[in-house]
């Protein structure tokens, strides 16, 4: 049996989905997961506070969602795949979500790539 991960030596800017952070983020992840239902997407667009109330989120998580703070949510334990449902619903595509997490504008990020488009 070989230890597979050295949590203290992960590359900077990497947050693994595991442990008590994963437990804490379960409700945020569930809200994002459920956005695959069109009715939930409509509910979020109509009244985000009401939808969040249904998921019994902690105040910190609610504020991060209000702020569209994708990096903050990842740091709190949200998994990027359900989170992308939320960020895309809020108008940030994959590249835009990523640029924000890198602390760049979309243009700055795309300038680091060879091709354009999604």
């Amino acid at each position: 049996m070989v230890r597979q991960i050295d949590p203290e030596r992960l590359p900077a800017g990497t947050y693994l989905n595991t442990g008590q952070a994963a437990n804490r983020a379960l409700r945020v992840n569930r809200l994002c997961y459920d956005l695959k239902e069109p009715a939930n997407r409509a509910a979020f667009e109509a009244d985000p506070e009401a939808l969040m109330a249904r998921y019994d989120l902690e105040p910190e998580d609610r504020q991060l969602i209000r702020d569209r703070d994708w990096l903050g949510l990842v740091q709190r334990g949200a998994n990027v795949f359900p989170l992308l449902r939320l960020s895309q619903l809020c108008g940030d595509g994959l590249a835009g979500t990523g640029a924000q997490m890198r602390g760049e504008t979309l243009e700055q990020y795309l300038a680091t790539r060879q091709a354009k488009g999604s």
Partner: protein
Amino acid sequence: MARIIGGLGSPHAPSIGALIDQGGWDQPEWKKLMDGYRPMQDWLEAHKPDAAILIYNDHVTSFFFDRYPTFALSVASEHPVADEGFGPRPLPPVRGDSDLAWHLAHALVEDEFDLTICQDMPLDHGALTPISAFWPNHANGWPTAIVPIAVNVLQFPVPTPRRLYKLGQALRRAVESWPQDKTVVVLGTGGLSHQLHGERFGFRNADWDHEFLSLLETDPEALASLRTQDYIERGGAEGAEMVMWLAMRGALSGEARKLHVNYHGPLHTGFAQILFEEPAAVIA
């Protein structure tokens, strides 16, 4: 007795699926990537395998973290096309092979793989992207039955690289004990290098991707000996899903020959395709 005739590797990014649905096979910006599928399509058309074992991961579409399986095998005879949040892709439901799948279930569990057995498993882009690229004429149904195995690469602990390689070896034993005169291919999907979260978003490593493709052919044992940490460091946290290709490689014999490889890393992700052929595939 059934036999494995080949192994194919493909990325599974949803952008590729969108391109396929738009008929964008020749879009200049993506031609290098999409042309990589042509020899694979021709090979599949020539060999017409009866079934494909598809090693992929679900992206929190059909599985939520309330219950997250390390390995989930579908024994369903049909798989719905999942709605991931933007409407389902215009694809026909994906035909399974219950008889093969239940045979694999018994063989793998006897072989000490602790599967989650699924009778209702919609498929997301992790599965749909590669099969829609391999079989582009799918509008009226899939020519090959698909037996999907979903792997956890999202919530840690994830299975070790060696476990994936062993899964492939066990799949080979299991297929060879299936008492049907049928041909099977194994599909590895995902990767290569990419990271989609945190300040490290956009990380790619073409050198590692090429080394991986080369070792996959010549020394898969070396890839199985690496730790998950190595994959994360070299290929990004989401790129660590490339261990799923080890299951495909583990299912092949020492005599498998690499017929084709392609690499293209234009945007967020290092994309690759590979095709291995078994001697058993040679048409008499």
